[in-house]
């Protein structure tokens, strides 16, 4: 059964359309991420599910019940906000118990559940403190505890990690995923951070300008982008203009200016039908630089010149010129990195490439 269903949702603010006709099914117990740059409509979508915004058109159901006309306080949702939104005048325990007051939970039972929630977020000792006395990471854990203690039908997370500093963010990412797994709650997560999305989600919905660009498992979205936007937004990609010559067997041949003809596996070019203009996507970490004299070992190889080296410790990001193209390659450093001005052999395996049709 779906926990949340969006059917033909449209949201307009005056003349501006923030979300274009969007449909989505979020299965029970799954972790779904709405990913996109700011202004793509992801937060608007979340707020419509929450009941903080009314959709202009379409239908929203939670657990099979149409909720368009159900106000937020009757939807039984847990929301975690970017800035925690803890009640500053209540203690941590009172914060967590707040939602239980409106659910006719007996006092003893409420106390027990608050303690369990604090334990779940690994902060059992802070119940008597006020939010201001806690660090940002601790406050976010309390916000999470407050949201899940009411056993909501859906947990909505609105960029919950972006106010934390980098190290803490990665810890919280793991923590959040652990808790979600343990209680098995359906979660909708909104973020603009692709690494959070890739690490945490069962399913990623990539959005841009109010439209869904692609929805799928993290590997699917990462490895087989269906649009140029997705290819550019996730990771670092080289996107080459080319011409498709149509499928033959399990492969689609793409002619490109820099690399000649590359035969991309059919499953890496699911949207490409027939021949015509196409785009070839090569992930920066799939583009290998090698010394020209070494054996290409079945890879497609062209000559290039290293223009810029961005040294990153165990890896380096190179900007390489191949003919008229400037390409990016992120390679592990073996021994020592290439230098600017080096002539290198730029190599790629056809099965590491993806292809998409020219944008309409």
């Amino acid at each position: 059964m779906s926990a949340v269903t969006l059917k033909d949702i449209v949201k307009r603010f005056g003349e501006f359309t923030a979300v274009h006709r969007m449909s989505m099914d979020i299965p029970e117990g799954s972790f779904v991420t709405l990913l996109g740059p700011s202004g793509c409509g992801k937060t608007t979508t979340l707020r419509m599910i929450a009941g903080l915004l009314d959709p202009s058109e379409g239908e929203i159901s939670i657990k099979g019940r149409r909720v368009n006309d159900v106000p937020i306080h009757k939807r039984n949702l847990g929301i975690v906000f970017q800035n925690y939104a803890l009640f500053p005048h209540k203690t941590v325990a009172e914060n967590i118990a707040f939602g239980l007051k409106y659910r006719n939970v007996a006092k003893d039972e409420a106390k027990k559940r608050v303690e369990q929630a604090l334990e779940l977020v690994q902060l059992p000792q802070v119940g008597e403190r006020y939010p201001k006395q806690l660090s940002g990471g601790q406050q976010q854990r309390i916000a999470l505890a407050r949201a899940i203690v009411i056993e909501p039908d859906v947990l909505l997370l609105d960029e919950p990690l972006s106010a934390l500093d980098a190290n803490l963010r990665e810890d919280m990412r793991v923590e959040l995923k652990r808790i979600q797994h343990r209680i098995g709650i359906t979660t909708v997560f909104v973020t603009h951070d692709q690494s959070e999305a890739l690490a945490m989600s069962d399913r990623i919905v990539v959005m841009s300008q109010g439209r869904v660009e692609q929805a799928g498992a993290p590997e699917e979205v990462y490895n087989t982008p269906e649009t140029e936007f997705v290819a550019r937004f996730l990771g670092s990609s080289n996107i080459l203009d080319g011409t498709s010559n149509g499928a033959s067997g399990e492969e689609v041949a793409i002619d490109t200016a820099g690399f000649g003809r590359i035969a991309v596996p059919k499953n890496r070019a699911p949207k490409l039908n027939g021949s015509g203009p196409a785009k070839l996507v090569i992930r920066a970490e799939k583009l290998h630089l090698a010394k020209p004299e070494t054996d290409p070992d079945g890879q497609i190889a062209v000559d290039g010149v290293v223009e810029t080296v961005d040294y990153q410790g165990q890896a380096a990001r190179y900007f390489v010129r191949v003919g008229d193209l400037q390409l990016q390659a992120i390679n592990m450093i073996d021994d020592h990195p290439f230098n600017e001005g080096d002539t290198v052999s730029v190599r790629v395996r056809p099965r590491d490439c993806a292809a998409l049709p020219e944008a309409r």
Partner: protein
Amino acid sequence: MGWNLVRAWTILVYIFMFLPVAVVVLLSFNASQFGSFPMTGFSFRWFVELAQNEAILRAFRTSLVLGSLTAVVSTALGVLASLALVRYNVPGRNVISTLLIAPILVPEVVLAVALLLFLNFLSINKSFFLLLLGHVIFTLPFVILVVQARLVGIRRDVEEAAMSLGASPVQTFFQITLPLLAPAVFAGMLFAFTISFDDITGTLFWKPGGVETVPTQIFAMLRNSISPEINALGTVMIVLTVGLPLLGLAIARRMAAARGG
């Protein structure tokens, strides 16, 4: 050297401003018949006489009732107006905001005369209710300014969080917004009370015949003679209008400290 001069000058300015007040307080304890120097002895005599003066007591009661009512009405309206202006997209928000603040900017005499002429035009007689109305009009801006400033600082997502947890909008207001707003509401109320309690200009124009507030009573008494009772009354007024806000501030600090700063 330069700074010492500035320092001395500042001290002189403050003395110039506060010495008369100190003199009034001092003279209110003077045993002499005349409300002026020299001091002939220390006595509570004038306070006792004050407490026995029917007219002053009546004026005092009027001022207290008027001040309290003004504070309550002004604060209730001010909080509602601030909520509407900050939280909702009211059409003509800026115009309304300016209109509500305007009574501070318009000289009080002008406001007083305008309201009086308006009431005359409508052939409404002066009454205590209208006096209250006048006081509410010019204390409202202070309440709104204080409450609005605080309300802007209360994040909307705190209220949204409360609602997502099951609190209705009304429950959210009383559970979350109002407690967070409390210091401002309290301050606004004190402002309204002290301003109303102190006011003379508007009150002189608006008060119905026979009703006196403490300031108008003092004014009336001064017209006849300078009685030492006035000094005593002045002292009481100072204690009320200075002491009350200070007390309020102390309580607000206490409350804030109790919940972890």
